[in-house]
């Protein structure tokens, strides 16, 4: 007797390691982990063919919680490490995951250049508008009037708009998801992985410890009312005017992904020695 659909060879559980997360119970990152594992299972990828690269932060702990190859590098440099990895091993599916501090502050410059290079990576930023790991300092996406010990009067600085910046810098796929919607997030991540070039997925993921008010995000998010566009100008207008809680795939570009100029020479290093011969 057959089930309605043939069962998948691997399930989301197969992508979850038995190393238990240290995240606070309630943290949105748990669901992001679930979404990533679901997306990988839905795409029928093999864990050993996937690398999850991260920096430092609560969210950046994610690689070890999967059964994929993981790279938990230093703070802010995940995209740089992932770029090297993907160029060296184009056969791998490379995911980059981390927080808003890691991705937009210390790693902001790498973010710009990763968008611009358009290497076939999927960058998942778990944005909680705060530095969780270091106990609640403002990040680039923190509201200007949010008060903390380090900024007792708020930063007074306008928030960084990662989606608009990604578009301007040349990202080929731009989406926003909400951790409280794991199937939606999984679907978006799956699409991001499949899309060629640099895919950027911003996941709103509440930090219940330092921003408990973010539990109310589930009331604020709403699915995008129109389908993704491939026109950067239209996308720019949409992204510039969106309220930050619009979820779904918002831009799907058509730029070809970066590919390293693969040489077809078959020279051996020894062959080069003759250049020096007198």
């Amino acid at each position, binding site marked *: 007797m057959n089930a309605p659909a043939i069962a998948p060879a691997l399930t989301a559980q197969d992508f979850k390691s038995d190393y238990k997360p240290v995240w606070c*119970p309630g943290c949105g990152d748990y669901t992001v982990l679930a979404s990533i594992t679901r997306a990988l299972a839905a795409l029928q990828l093999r864990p050993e063919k996937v690398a999850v690269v991260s920096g430092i932060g609560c969210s950046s702990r994610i690689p070890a919680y999967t059964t994929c190859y993981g790279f938990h590098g230093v703070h802010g440099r995940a995209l740089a490490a992932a770029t090297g990895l993907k160029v060296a091993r184009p056969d791998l599916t490379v995911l980059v995951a981390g927080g808003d501090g890691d991705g937009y502050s210390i790693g902001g410059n790498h973010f710009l250049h990763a968008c611009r290079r358009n290497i076939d990576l999927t960058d998942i930023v778990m944005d909680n508008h705060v530095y969780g790991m270091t106990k609640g300092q403002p990040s680039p996406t923190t509201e200007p009037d949010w008060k903390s010990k380090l900024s007792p009067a708020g930063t007074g600085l306008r928030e960084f708009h990662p989606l608009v910046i990604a578009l301007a810098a040349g990202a080929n796929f731009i989406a926003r998801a909400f951790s409280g919607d794991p199937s939606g997030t999984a679907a978006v991540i799956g699409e991001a992985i499949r899309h060629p070039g640099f895919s950027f997925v911003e996941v709103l993921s509440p930090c219940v410890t330092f921003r408990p008010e973010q539990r109310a995000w589930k009331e604020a998010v709403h699915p995008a009312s129109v389908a993704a566009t491939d026109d950067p100008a239209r996308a720019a207008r949409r992204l510039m005017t969106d309220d930050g809680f619009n979820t779904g795939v918002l831009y799907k570009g058509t730029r070809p992904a970066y590919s390293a100029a693969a040489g077809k020479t078959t020279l051996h290093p020894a062959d080069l020695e003759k250049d020096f011969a007198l």
Partner: protein
Amino acid sequence: MSPTKAARATTPKKPRANGTRAAAGPYAQFMARAYAMETDAAERYADFADQMDVHNNPEVAELFRKLSSIEALHAKRILEEMGWKQPPRAPLAWDEAEPPETTAHTELHYLMQPYHALQLALRNEQRAEQFFARIARARKAPPEVRRAATELAEEEREHVRLIREWMKRVPKPEKDWDRDPDPPGLSD
């Protein structure tokens, strides 16, 4: 519901329908959905149990583990009833962000008490009951599906009752149960 009662409530019955006939029809689709609901709930409760272990809350960990095994049993029973050798592929879309019997991750707290866990479970069972009851009432649904939905709604109603009883047996949390005088730890 106590574990023994739960076990009783989930003893497999005779297969509900002839599997071959049901294989691709709306009834099988419906049961596949019910199966997905139960497995998702079981996995989530297991996740929660792990989280409570890591955060030094063994009592609630044990409770979540219990809830997880109850849901897993329900799922297994659906497989048996349908005579499915392999689990059906989980449908990805639900009315809400998550299946009706699943608690969102953000509901957890490291200092939560058994009562809170049961509150979450109660809400899940209630949502599940409503979910099935809605299908049972749906005129457009095939009679076979409506019959099964009625039965499942009935079961969920029973679970609601059992959990309510269970809740009477655990202490109600005091008002400052989530007080932690110490600041969060730090790392990395």
